């Protein structure tokens, strides 16, 4: 049992709260005590104490910067935000018809998607345990809808297995489970687990395995009604004279194992992918726009920060208009810096040697996404795939089907590639038109309709994004450096996804900003 600072045990404190204030208060208390939640979002900030008109400069208007700006203003601070781009949101970004995106090197892509269609080049799904993101969505009126992560009718594909033909997730999943359950049942039957499982438990385990693996009464995983009820039928269940179904053939265990398709069976079981997860209706940048409605008046756009200097009790950022022009400066009492370290390391700054070393040693992961628009939703119309993700060993790595507007007649957009590592490096190195060609080639191996139905595409290689130079920050030595990076350096606190244990998640960006705001406020009010 753990004790709080007053020395009252956690459980007795909870029962006291429960007795006095009812279940709602008890749940709230459980949450703040870390029992009932996984994100460390401790509820909305309620900063007490006089900010005394303290000026805070926020660098970067991504979600971390805008969270800081919103909370600081609410607590009475004078806030100014400098942002390189012409709009807010940073990586929380959506590309839709009419948008134009120019990457480093100068290639411009004009997006021609139909009304309502979009690509989220960065964040695309919100886990249900990311309480801070979800709370801001609720507060700011961002409408959310389910994001389909797992679809049993989507494909698992390996160009070297099943003659390169994609397999339905439900077939591979059921076969893998069935065979594993059968094997384990045999081991139990041979009493090989006696040392680990009591006799009573062994019987329960057999019952569980039969159910889990869709085994028959002989505890075998075979072609038949039991397995087809999960993996699908060769002739489907129907009505009238042709109603009787025919079971589908199960694949032998060795075929499943050698196919390597089991690799992606558990993707949706990951803590942050577990159903139900969400996306904003209309594109991820609905979150960015909602924040911008709250704090847009504090932001100077098209402002490229080029120098950061601390002098006495103040901090000054020098900036130039992003399109070129005269230098300007902004001075404040404190700074919250959310500029990605990939860029901050190149800015002329006077942070401590320790902080500079940490900034310079953080490198950024490579990532690539491509959205393709097709004339019709052939994945729905021909293949009965409604949302979800197909996985492949091809360089595109996955295809994600839209989790919205099912059964609509017009054109639809697929996330047609989401690559990391070696594949992503090469996509980043190709010009935009070549990337689309490559993605069409690979995708055609899974959906042969690609070439006939293709309308247009847009792609984002994250190392070519001018304002982040990569996907997310990776620590050279997180154990050694993390806490030092959170320390106030001069008058500046760092925030952003990189200052979190939820890197590459919006939740991490927001939590880091909330933590920085609380610490800044403590510094100001305790001074």
């Amino acid at each position: 049992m753990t004790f709080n600072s007053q020395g009252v045990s956690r459980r007795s404190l909870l029962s006291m709260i429960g007795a006095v204030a009812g279940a709602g208060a008890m749940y709230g208390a459980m949450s703040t005590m870390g029992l009932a939640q996984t994100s460390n979002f401790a509820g909305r900030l309620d900063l007490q104490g006089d900010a005394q008109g303290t000026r805070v400069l926020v660098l970067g208007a991504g979600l971390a910067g805008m969270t800081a700006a919103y909370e600081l203003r609410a607590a009475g601070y004078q806030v100014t935000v400098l942002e390189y781009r012409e709009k807010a949101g940073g990586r929380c970004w959506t590309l839709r018809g009419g948008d134009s995106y120019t990457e480093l090197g100068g290639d411009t892509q004009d997006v021609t998607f139909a009304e309502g269609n979009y690509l989220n080049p960065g964040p695309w799904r919100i886990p249900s345990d990311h309480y801070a993101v979800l709370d801001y969505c609720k507060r700011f009126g961002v409408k959310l809808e389910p994001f389909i992560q797992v679809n049993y009718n989507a494909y698992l594909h390996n160009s070297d297995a099943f003659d390169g033909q994609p397999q339905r997730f439900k077939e591979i999943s059921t076969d893998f489970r069935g065979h594993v359950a059968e094997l384990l049942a045999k081991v139990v039957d041979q009493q090989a687990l006696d040392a680990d499982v009591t006799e009573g438990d062994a019987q329960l385990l057999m019952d569980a395995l039969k159910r889990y693996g869709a085994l028959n009464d002989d505890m075998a995983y075979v072609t038949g009604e039991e397995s087809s009820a999960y993996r699908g039928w060769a002739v489907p269940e129907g009505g009238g004279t042709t109603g009787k179904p025919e079971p589908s053939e199960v694949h032998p265990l060795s075929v499943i194992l050698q196919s390597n398709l089991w690799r992606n069976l558990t993707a949706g079981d990951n803590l942050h992918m577990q159903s139900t997860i969400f996306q904003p209706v209309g594109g991820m940048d609905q979150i960015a726009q909602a924040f911008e409605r709250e704090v847009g008046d504090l932001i100077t756009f098209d402002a490229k920060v080029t120098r950061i200097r601390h002098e006495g009790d103040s901090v000054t950022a020098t900036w130039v208009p992003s399109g070129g022009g005269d230098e300007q400066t902004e001075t404040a009492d404190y700074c919250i810096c959310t500029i990605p370290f990939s860029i901050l390391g190149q800015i002329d700054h006077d942070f401590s040697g320790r902080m500079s070393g940490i900034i310079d040693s953080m490198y950024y992961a490579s990532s690539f996404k491509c959205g393709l628009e097709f004339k019709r939703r052939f994945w729905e119309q021909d293949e009965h795939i409604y949302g979800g993700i197909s996985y492949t060993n091809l360089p595109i790595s996955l295809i994600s089907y839209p989790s919205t507007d099912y059964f609509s007649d017009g054109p639809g957009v697929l996330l047609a590639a989401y690559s990391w590592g070696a594949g992503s490096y090469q996509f980043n190195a190709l010009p935009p038109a070549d990337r689309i060609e490559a993605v069409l080639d690979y995708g055609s191996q899974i959906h042969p309709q690609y070439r006939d139905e293709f309308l247009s595409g847009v792609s984002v290689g994250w190392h070519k994004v001018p304002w982040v130079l990569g996907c997310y920050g990776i620590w050279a030595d997180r154990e050694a450096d993390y806490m030092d990076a959170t320390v106030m350096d001069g008058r500046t606190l760092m925030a952003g996804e990189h200052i979190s244990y939820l890197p590459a998640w919006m939740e991490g960006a927001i939590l880091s900003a909330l933590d920085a705001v609380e610490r800044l406020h403590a510094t100001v009010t305790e001074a």
Partner: protein
Amino acid sequence: MNRIFMLTAAFAALTLPAAAQEAGEVVMIDRGGWFEDPSRLTQSGGQQVYEAICAACHMPDGEGAVGAGDYPALADNENLMTADYPIYLILQGQKAMPPLGGVLDDTQVADVVNYIRTSFGNDYAEDPATPDSVAAAR
């Protein structure tokens, strides 16, 4: 479903150059030898490796790029005077640049280092990188 699978097999036979031709006038990069291994780059030769990975940020002619931050130009770059520095950066990464020793082998690293040291206006042919010197720096 079976019909779709038969079509899939037919389309899988399409070779990359044939598909590229379908796109018409646009001149496409020859992707033969690209994307062959999901976990490594398989191109060989300094220029080929450069074009498949380095060019993304340092640009095809080594001119670098400027956004909210910069990608340094490799053209006319005195930091390339010795091979050790680019070898170190390629293996360790720095700032936006990830360590690339996991996707490139010693020969690829040596070849690409020698390529950038003798291209884009650089003339540092002496003391070239070798697979051994790269291995020693890992």
